[in-house]
């Protein structure tokens, strides 16, 4: 079979999508090329959707498109693909590299294969619109603006922004946090937390050394702002005449009640995320070392265990439970989680009153240590029993 062949454009998209499932790699490749070309030529967004869905087991292969300052994504042109050469356009390469770092972080650190954990393709669109001051996740792919050059600059420059947006995709495939009120603020906060630790991981920084800023690179130097948000100091990312003062709270006492409308930021999802952001930062500092290790795993497992309507209290309780599952009851990690939520004004539901005042992680007493060990052994015994049953069932089926 000749290489680089194209399947004729007369082939209907649904048939091309079917061909993507072919066992013949050349057929799959030709179908993919044709789909992408057809999509570009005809501007059929539906075709790209079928590519994204059908070609999911792609190990997170990356494709960057150039909007050429237009706003219709279907009209964007292919700028760089996974196997293609680097572009002469820095925005294309920055988006491509940011996707790669984020993909590698999720695989290496959290054992997650791309956004959907099934190798979903990563597609990005750069140079969206004219002077467009934003980057967003459209539910399927990521879109970057160039900024106006006065307040904002090219949004592809910020790795934590890229990881933030891709994490919105991860959230869609896990908890499905809504985008309203507290669950929406958790949605934003998880994106900030993962965005920050992707950057820390890429730089090899400890929690103590990290800046904990989100979008430090997207402001022009003249604007006098540190970043869009600070996880270490919510409310302290900027304070000047043009932008006003960063309104993020760091404590439940300062929770901002806003209407659940576009005008009210859907109940303040970008405002009240400061509270769980600070809790994650405090947990990371409390545990010490690399934030993508215990703190990252606790938050990620809690994300996976949450639902669309989870609120701050439930999420805090889940992180406490996950810390126990992963590192043991009364472990330093679990106590750091408890102290962090307490310091932002959230009292955990499952913690005995006597333990609520504990400020610093401390070594458990002999009694509690035995109690924790006994609980862990009980959990392990249950898991072994389940596994044994599964193996017996499988052996029975194989024998039959």
């Amino acid at each position, binding site marked *: 079979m000749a290489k680089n062949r194209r399947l004729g454009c007369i082939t209907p998209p649904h048939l091309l999508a079917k061909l993507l499932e072919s066992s013949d790699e050349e057929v799959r490749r030709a179908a993919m090329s044709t789909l992408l070309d057809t999509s570009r030529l005809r501007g059929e967004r539906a075709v790209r959707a079928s590519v994204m*869905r059908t070609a999911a087991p792609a190990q997170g292969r990356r494709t960057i498109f150039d909007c050429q300052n237009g706003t219709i994504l*279907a009209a964007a042109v292919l700028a760089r693909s996974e196997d293609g050469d680097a572009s002469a356009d820095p925005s294309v390469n920055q988006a491509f590299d940011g996707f790669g770092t984020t993909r590698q972080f999720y695989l290496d650190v959290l054992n997650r294969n791309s956004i959907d954990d099934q190798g979903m393709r990563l597609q990005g669109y750069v140079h969206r*619109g004219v002077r467009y001051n*934003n980057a967003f*996740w459209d*539910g399927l792919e990521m879109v970057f603006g160039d900024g106006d050059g006065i307040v904002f600059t090219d949004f592809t420059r910020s790795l934590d922004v890229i990881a933030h947006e891709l994490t919105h995709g991860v959230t869609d495939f896990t908890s499905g946090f809504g*985008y309203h009120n507290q669950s929406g603020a958790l949605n934003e906060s998880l994106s900030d937390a993962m965005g920050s630790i992707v950057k820390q991981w890429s730089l090899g920084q400890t929690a103590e050394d990290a800046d904990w800023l989100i979008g430090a690179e997207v402001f022009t130097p003249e604007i006098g702002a540190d970043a869009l*948000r600070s996880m270490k100091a919510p409310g302290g990312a900027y304070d000047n005449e043009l932008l006003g003062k960063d*309104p993020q709270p760091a404590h439940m006492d300062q929770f901002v009640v806003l209407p659940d409308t576009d005008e009210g930021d*859907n109940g303040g999802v970008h405002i009240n995320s400061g509270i769980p952001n600070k809790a994650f930062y405090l947990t990371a500092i409390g545990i010490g070392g690399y934030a993508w290790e215990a703190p990252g795993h606790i938050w990620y497992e809690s994300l996976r265990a949450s639902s669309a309507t989870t609120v701050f209290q439930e999420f805090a309780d889940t992180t406490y439970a996950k810390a126990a599952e992963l590192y043991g009851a009364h472990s330093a990690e679990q106590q750091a989680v408890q102290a962090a939520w307490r310091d932002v004004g959230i009292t955990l539901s499952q913690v005995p009153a006597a333990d609520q005042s504990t400020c610093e992680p401390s070594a458990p007493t002999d009694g509690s240590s035995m109690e924790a060990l006994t609980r862990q052994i009980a959990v392990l015994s249950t898991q072994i029993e389940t596994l044994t049953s599964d193996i017996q069932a499988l052996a029975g089926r194989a024998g039959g």
Partner: protein
Amino acid sequence: MKVSLAVHGGLAAAIHLRRPPLVVDTAALSGNETRELAELVAAAKDSPPGAEERRQGAARDAMSYTITVEDGGTSAILHQSDTRMSPEFTSLLGWLQQHSPDAAN
């Protein structure tokens, strides 16, 4: 005629939340600019939002825009978003942003 533009949401939602709408008053425009704006407003009013571009999951950090047109004692409100915007609304939005002294919008 006065046309105001309010921007909502986006990565910088916290900043947009506190900023006043951008306002363009035709009293301060040339005759050509006034005609141009009136044509863009008329076209945007007649154009519903485009079909939703996304099909899976939901948009996050996308921005939305409210354009309020006050003219001769009547007012009209147009509201569209980054993921669902007609070409006519896009043109009006771009014109307003270009003719604004406030570049942050």
